[in-house]
């Protein structure tokens, strides 16, 4: 943060403004979370009576949560998702780092063509069927690996990590080289500890991605015991996409959805773990680690 030795009146006014703006935005974004949580705790009859929108319910009930959590499939799906998220994120960060570090060295021959080739993959893709065929050919279908390997490296995250490595001060690595460290040791002993913010950030990105994964689950998994959390939840609360023509000729195809309150409870169950983890990760956005490294 910017340092100010002592604050003028203008400085203090700007400070107040900043706090105010942030508070307002915070409230604006807090509101839907509040709405979701409140709805999940309100009795359904009250929701209907008020036309679907209740700000302060008269009573609270855990019925919706009971419906969701008593389903036999949820705990199992939760286990699957947690496993995949932890293992997957670890592998994601590992492979991404191993790829990003060399690519951050501008002197490495072949760097530019490789980067071009990787960015190319961000834009060009053969589509669902060829990817499925490859996943099948590599034996991943119907295994949890199918939720990890096909998305092992996100080029976007890779580029961010590369940029981060590029911006590390050169002296740090040079001093390591002078001390006789090879490339691998430099990476592990020096660069990695300095990369806490970026690892936390990308770990968050990859982790959230795993947590929210839905489509891969449906496509690659046949055994329902392997279904991750989002697939199970969405099955409960969302109308599948049906063609308009079908809806017109088949008016009874619209399925009856569970009450709004159950949907909201499902959302809370899906969101809560991640929202709980995030504040802990924020600790890693600490500056000053750099400072310590240089001085030490």
């Amino acid at each position: 943060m910017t340092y100010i030795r002592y604050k003028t009146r203008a400085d203090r006014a700007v400070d107040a403004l900043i706090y105010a703006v942030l508070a307002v935005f915070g409230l604006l974004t807090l509101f839907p979370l509040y709405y979701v949580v409140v709805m999940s705790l309100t009795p359904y009859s009250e929701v209907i009576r008020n036309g679907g929108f209740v700000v302060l319910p008269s009573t609270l009930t855990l019925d919706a949560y009971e419906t969701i959590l008593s389903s036999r499939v949820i705990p199992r799906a939760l286990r699957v998702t947690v496993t995949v998220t932890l293992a997957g994120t670890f592998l994601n960060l590992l492979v991404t780092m191993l790829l990003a570090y060399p690519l951050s060295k501008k002197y490495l021959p072949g760097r530019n063509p490789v980067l071009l080739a990787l960015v190319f993959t961000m834009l060009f893709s053969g589509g669902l069927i060829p990817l499925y065929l490859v996943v099948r050919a590599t034996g991943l279908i119907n295994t949890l690996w199918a939720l990890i390997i096909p998305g092992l490296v996100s080029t976007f995250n890779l580029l961010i990590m590369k940029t981060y490595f590029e911006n590390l001060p050169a002296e740090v690595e040079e001093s390591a080289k002078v001390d006789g460290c090879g490339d691998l040791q430099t990476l592990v002993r020096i660069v990695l500890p300095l990369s806490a913010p970026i690892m936390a950030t990308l770990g968050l990105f990859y982790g959230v991605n795993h947590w929210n994964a839905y489509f891969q689950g449906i496509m690659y998994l046949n055994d329902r015991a392997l279904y991750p959390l989002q697939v199970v939840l969405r099955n409960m609360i969302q109308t599948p996409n049906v063609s308009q023509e079908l809806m017109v000729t088949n008016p009874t195809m619209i399925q009856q959805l569970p009450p709004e309150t159950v949907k909201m409870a499902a959302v809370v169950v899906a969101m809560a773990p991640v929202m709980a983890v995030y504040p802990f990760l924020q600790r890693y956005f600490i500056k000053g680690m750099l400072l310590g490294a240089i001085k030490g």
Partner: protein
Amino acid sequence: MRASSIPNLSRPADGRWPYRAARAAVKYRWLYLMMLPGLLYYLIYHYVPMAGLVIAFKDYSLSKGIFGSEWVGFRNFEIIFGSPEFFRLIRNTLVISIYRILFNMLPDVLLALLLNEIRVAWFKRTIQTVTYGPYFLSWVIVYGLAFAFLSQETGIVNRLIADLGGTPINFLAGSEWFRTVIITTDIWKNTGYGAIIYLAALATINPELYEAAVVDGANRWRQMWHITLPGIRDVFILLLILRIGHILDAGFEQIYIFLNARVYNVGDIIDTWVFRRGLEQLEFSVAIATNLFKSVVGFILVLGANYLAKKFNGSGIW
């Protein structure tokens, strides 16, 4: 271990190409080795499936497979470009994408900068966490909320307007407001998440720079201009280039949820059109052809943007 049998030229870059390559491979062998798992991944799971792009030029039949299907040249593209809606689709796609670039990138940066100025730790952590929340809500839920607020007859905003004597505004089903609603809800949903990356970048700016600046008498604005902003410049440029590359992806998921027949005129984008076709009839070739078209355009734009970035910023993606 150095292989002493190789001629000891002063720099690895001297000499003829195969020798240079071999020397480079040896000198940087650890770096190359490190990249192996990742590169293997890209090869198998990105480049091999890319062969499927030929479907864009074929009439894909499930039984004949990718290579057995009949070659039809550019016919799929003719279907796309020949649709009476094509011009409108392109226009809407571009307009919405450009709006997103113009209006959605800056709030992310702004939020990060503002948070960066905060000293009170609990306030900063709270705001950071709370603003992150809407990212997790699916667009279906966001739409439900938007409807509760903005629907013409029963929406809270409109009821307020009516109570104050005005005429209710058609936010969701009218051409004038549709794009605005899309952009605004996008900002609201994604800013917290988008700011994270800038916060991480800000966290790595060397504090000594700030201390030195204070000694030099710089106020907060000068510090921001000379230290803070340059610290996030590279990330910003990177994100900008990538967004430009995806300019023909105007945010399908959100648009699909918000779209209704009254706003096709301003909201129907390429992806919603393709999706509708796919629902009515099982059809892969047109979808792949559309993707190919988007990819080519995006790639050209990325190359151009990267070139400009290098020129004005000193560095782009590569």
